């Protein structure tokens, strides 16, 4: 580290400067007839407190804070090494605290902060019925369910949105021959995927054309995660999946 060498050199410089001062003072006194011993003592007395003079001179260099900071750090480390039990407890506490915070933040980040995996999540809005007098449907749950005529009216006659889609949650029986299981799913309106801007990796998603009575298309769209988990990422699975539902 060059700055460290620079630091050390300036300190040595100051030391030599003061040494030279004392040597010259002693020499002058000896020339005036004092004995070397007397001269040395008198010169030292005249000079005063050498370490103190060095300290106040170094203060003018403006990095005294760095030096005392380094001293404090060294002292702290020495004390920590002297009581390893305390040190381990302190480090473990810090590690646990930081770890717990990180874990909670990761959870929050995944649940709340990460945006939805759709094209323009900032443009999404939820439509709710304001005038409850004329509202028909189920309004007791978190997401109100409107009747189909109301939905069809909304679909045909909405202003201010580029698209509108409806959904309701349900549970499908995923019967793959022998072991029937439930799978969480959604009933969605035909335009659902277009409105959200979600495109399929394989096959196709529903479109508005599918959204008619007796469309005769018993298909399903499954998520990537569901595909991996339930069908082991097999392409063959698509045929089976659609017939199974």
């Amino acid at each position, binding site marked *: 580290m060059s700055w460290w060498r620079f630091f050390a050199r300036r300190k040595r410089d100051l030391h030599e400067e003061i040494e030279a001062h004392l040597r010259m003072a002693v020499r002058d006194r000896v020339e005036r007839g004092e004995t070397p011993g007397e001269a040395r003592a008198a010169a030292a007395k005249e000079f005063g407190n050498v370490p103190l*003079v060095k300290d106040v*001179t170094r203060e003018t*260099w403006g990095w005294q804070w760095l030096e005392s900071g380094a001293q404090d750090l060294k002292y702290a480390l020495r004390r920590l090494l002297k009581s390893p039990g305390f040190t381990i407890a302190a480090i473990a506490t810090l590690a646990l605290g930081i770890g717990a915070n990180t874990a909670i933040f990761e959870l929050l980040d995944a649940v709340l902060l990460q945006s939805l995996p759709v094209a323009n999540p900032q443009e999404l809005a939820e439509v709710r019925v304001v005038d409850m007098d004329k509202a028909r449907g189920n309004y007791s749950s978190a997401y109100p369910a409107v009747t189909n005529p109301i939905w069809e009216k909304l679909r045909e006659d909405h202003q201010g949105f580029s698209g509108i889609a409806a959904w309701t949650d349900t549970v499908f029986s995923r019967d793959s021959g022998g072991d029937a299981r439930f799978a969480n799913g959604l009933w969605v309106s035909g335009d659902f995927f277009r409105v959200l801007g979600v495109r399929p990796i394989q096959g196709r998603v529903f479109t508005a054309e599918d959204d008619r009575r007796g469309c005769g298309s018993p298909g399903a769209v499954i998520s990537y995660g569901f595909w991996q988990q339930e069908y082991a990422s097999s392409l063959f699975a698509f045929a089976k999946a659609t017939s199974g539902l």
Partner: protein
Amino acid sequence: MLILQTLQWGPQHGYGISQAIRVRSGEVLQVETGSLYPALHRLERQAWVRSEWKLTESNQRAKYYRITATGKKQLASDHGRWQQMVEAIGAIMSGELERGEP
């Protein structure tokens, strides 16, 4: 100001400066080393003096300080201010004496 004035007479080391001030002031002023060295290093930081290691007449290594052009300018302005101060204080003190007389 005294240090800069001492260096006007030529480059000098710390010991030389303290001796010069003592001798020139007729042994009245004695610069403490605890003030002299911080002051020299501060002057160097402000670029009013420059330092270099040289040999003394008695062949000893010593750090010599030399006044710079900005240092000379600073000395002139300090000297002017000092003169003003002396005159102002002098005027006040002589006024005191005149009024003090019966």
